[in-house]
């Protein structure tokens, strides 16, 4: 618009020109104006004094244009600043988000690390405990091994003793059996000897009888027979003596038998003792077996301990490696927190670097954009400058032409002045002719010069006219062009504005399209979306729905049960027990309370029974001892019926009138009491003793009964 403004101002003189185009005076007026401009003093030639309003206006316009440009630049810079601020804010937000996420990650990793550390410590504690246990077990193992060894030794000694005793036993058994055999043999022998002795005694007797017989028979014929029997008898005597000796030996041997019996008994006792020791040995062997098994277990535990030690070493190595991280990475890391801190620092540095990167790229982009803008501006400015240059050149050429004309005119002026001076000087002188001729010549020269000048001027004039005409045409065309240009420029500018808007819209739409494309939008005319029917999402949803249904059914069932439990007691439970597997078992508290209730009820009942029994007992005792059955009819009224009452209805009524149950009784009037008026007067009114009255009544009734 700034370019248009000065052009508008130019339009005005052009309009003047066009309006007065038929009037030639206007042309001259402009020429006059030029001449007047030229006729101004020479000193002012150098000054480019602003011609009338137009150049002043142009400069103002130029200044205004500069100001507007500056304002536009300011606005542009402000918009850029706002954009930068927005971008900065977005960056800050994204930076915060990233920081939060990284912090979360860092905390998660720190927590994991802490957990690992805790686990590590737990493992170390366990290892220590296992080590302690292992030491204890090894101690016990050693003790048990020693006990085992001692037991082994005792066992061996006992075994040896047992073997010895067994040997002894065997030998003794053998001797015993041998001795038994001997005894049997001896007994047999004794028996046989006894038999022989008895036979011999019988024979002796026989022989003695024979001897006697023979003594009776004459001895004559006996000598021979006697001689032979004495020999036989001597033989028999010898045999008998031998037998006697044998019998004595036998008796001595038999005398040894009790000793043998004693020895036998002793051996049997030793046998029994050895059998006991054998049992002990068996027990000890079992114990040793048990100990051996324990020893095996201990050995297994040792192996396990070895493994645990290996694991411990590995863990300690790992720990060391973790601890050495600090040394290996060259950072000051001793605890996992330091490591997490380092990690966080590194991440923060990374974030800062990324930030810097983004800022750099954004600044780069903005710089590129500004560069593009500046280039456009530069092109436009260059074109403008070219136009200005052309204008300036035309102006300069005009100026040169005008200068030339000025020179010519000054020369003419000088010449005229000289002529005039000469004329003036020649007025005073007398001789004219040479002067005249000289003047004539000069005049002729001047005339020719002027004629030349005239022709030149005419030429110039024609040229100027032509130029003026051309200028007019130009002006017309320029005006037309300017109008067209104005219109065209307006249109161009409008179109440029529209183009920029459309470009921006285009960019925005492209961004949106890109965004939609990123989000997954599609053109339904050209594209369609397919997926597999049995996809994991649908299957998971189905499973979820089924789970939810099952859970709802369960919840409903549980609610109903709760309601029934809250309202009823045991009855709904019995009803619910007939339900499906969703019924809950009654809680432990309920069962305990029920049991308590039952026991309490039982107790109650038993107490009642006991009380009942006792009361009954007491009442019967009272009845029997005092002779009165006491019944409580109503509150504070007691009816006494005697044992010896004649009629069932004979009873005395007493009322408790005192405060509480302090026993100040009063006798009420009954039929029976009317019959006892005398006793009432005597015992109650005079003696004021109810027991006396009662006993008197009893005695009276008893006497009546017994007499009857």
């Amino acid at each position: 618009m700034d370019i248009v403004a000065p052009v508008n101002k130019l339009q005005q003189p052009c309009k003047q020109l066009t309006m007065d185009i038929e009037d030639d005076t206007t042309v001259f007026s402009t020429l006059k104006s030029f001449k007047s401009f030229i006729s101004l003093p020479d000193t002012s030639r150098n000054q480019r004094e602003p011609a009338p309003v137009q150049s002043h206006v142009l400069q103002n316009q130029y200044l205004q244009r500069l100001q507007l440009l500056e304002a536009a630049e300011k606005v542009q810079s402000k918009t850029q600043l706002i954009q930068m601020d927005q971008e900065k804010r977005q960056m800050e937000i994204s930076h915060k988000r990233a920081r939060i996420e990284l912090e979360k990650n860092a905390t998660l990793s720190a927590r994991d690390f802490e957990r690992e550390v805790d686990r590590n410590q737990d493992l170390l504690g366990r290892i220590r405990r296992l080590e302690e246990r292992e030491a204890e077990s090894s101690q016990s193992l050693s003790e048990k091994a020693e006990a085992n060894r001692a037991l082994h030794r005792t066992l061996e000694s006992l075994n040896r003793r047992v073997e010895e005793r067994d040997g002894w036993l065997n030998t003794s058994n053998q001797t015993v059996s041998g001795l038994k055999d001997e005894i049997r043999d001896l007994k047999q022998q004794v028996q046989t000897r006894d038999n022989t002795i008895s036979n011999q005694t019988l024979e002796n007797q026989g022989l003695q009888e024979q001897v006697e017989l023979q003594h009776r028979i004459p001895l004559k014929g006996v000598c021979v027979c006697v001689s032979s029997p004495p020999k036989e008898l001597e033989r028999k005597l010898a045999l008998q003596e031998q037998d006697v000796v044998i019998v004595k030996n036998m008796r001595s041997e038999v005398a040894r038998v009790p000793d043998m019996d004693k020895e036998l008994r002793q051996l049997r006792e030793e046998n029994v003792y050895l059998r006991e020791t054998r049992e002990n040995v068996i027990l000890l062997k079992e114990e040793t077996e048990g100990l051996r098994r324990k020893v095996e277990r201990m050995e297994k535990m040792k192996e396990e301990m070895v493994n645990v030690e290996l694991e411990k070493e590995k863990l300690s190595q790992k720990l060391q490696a973790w601890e050495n991280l600090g040394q290996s990475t060259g950072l000051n890391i001793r605890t996992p927190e330091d490591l997490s801190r380092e990690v966080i620092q590194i991440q923060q540095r990374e974030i800062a670097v990324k930030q810097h990167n983004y800022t750099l790229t954004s600044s780069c982009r903005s710089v590129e954009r500004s560069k593009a803008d500046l280039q456009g501006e530069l092109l436009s400015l260059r074109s403008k400058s070219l136009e200005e240059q052309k204008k300036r050149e035309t102006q300069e050429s005009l100026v040169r032409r005008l200068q030339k004309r000025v020179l010519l005119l000054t020369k003419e002026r000088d010449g005229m002045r000289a002529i005039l001076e000469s004329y003036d000087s020649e007025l005073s002188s007398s001789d004219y002719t040479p002067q005249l001729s000289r003047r004539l010549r000069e005049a002729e020269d001047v005339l020719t010069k002027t004629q030349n000048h005239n022709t030149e001027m005419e030429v110039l004039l024609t040229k100027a006219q032509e130029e003026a005409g051309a200028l007019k045409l130009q002006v017309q065309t320029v005006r037309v062009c300017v109008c067209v240009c104005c219109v065209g420029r307006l249109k161009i500018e409008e179109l440029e504005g529209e183009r920029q808007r459309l470009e921006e819209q285009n960019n925005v739409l492209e961004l949106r399209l890109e965004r939609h494309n990123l989000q997954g939008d599609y053109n339904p005319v050209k594209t369609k979306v397919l997926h597999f029917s049995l996809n994991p999402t649908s299957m998971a949803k189905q499973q979820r729905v089924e789970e939810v249904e099952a859970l709802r059914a369960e919840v409903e069932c549980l609610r109903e049960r709760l309601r029934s439990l809250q309202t009823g007691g045991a009855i709904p439970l019995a009803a619910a027990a007939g339900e499906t597997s969703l019924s809950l078992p009654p809680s432990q508290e309920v069962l305990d309370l029920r049991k308590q209730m039952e026991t309490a009820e039982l107790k109650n009942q038993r107490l009642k029974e006991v009380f009942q029994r006792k009361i009954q007992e007491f009442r019967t005792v009272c009845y029997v001892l005092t002779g009165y059955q006491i019944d409580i009819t109503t509150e504070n009224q007691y009816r006494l019926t005697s044992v010896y009452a004649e009629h069932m209805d004979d009873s005395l009524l007493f009322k408790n009138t005192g405060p509480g149950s302090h026993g100040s009784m009063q006798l009420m009037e009954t039929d029976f009491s009317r019959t006892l008026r005398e006793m009432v007067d005597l015992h109650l009114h005079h003696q004021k003793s109810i027991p006396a009255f009662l006993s008197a009544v009893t005695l009276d009734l008893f006497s009546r009964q017994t007499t009857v």
Partner: protein
Amino acid sequence: MTSTLKGITLKGSAELVAEFFSFGINSILYQRGLYPPETFSRVAQYDMSLQLTTDTKLKNYLTNVVSQLKEWLFDCTVQKLVLVITCLETSEVLERWQFDIECDKSAKEISAPREKSIKSIQDEIRSVIRQITATVTFLPLLETACAFDLLVYTDKDLEVPDKWEESGPQIIDQSEEVRLRSFTTSIHKVNSMVAYKRADSA
């Protein structure tokens, strides 16, 4: 296959891209914790060790999808592959991993293999997978139980195969998007991006 020393054919490129998707999806499932880490086993691929699931159901599902995807890649009818992570409780979409596929259709007519070394493709794939692993540092935690789904954006006129059905795009409401690296086999170009639900809008 792509073992031809000369270059990459359409078929070979389809296989490479399908293989990348298989490993990429497994990596994402492992990194985001959608399945327990003990159900994954390490394998070596692209000169790095990646995690592959051993769950049979999941494996079957992935094999079905990836084999179908390979066919579509060969026909150049697939435009995008999207891995959508949904929260089971609220049925909200929490994350969207989108892979745009640009196919050079001229490779269908001209069957001459293109010159691009497999090593350079593998390097590009490796950097993409590394970046996927690195994005986990700024993605918000998935605290609730989640499940995933694979969506395929195809041409409209494509015949829907058996066991597949149409579905919505499952776009995240109020999301932040991050564009990741891309790789190209000179026939297929795969651009990766991830969109996640903004944490403060939850």
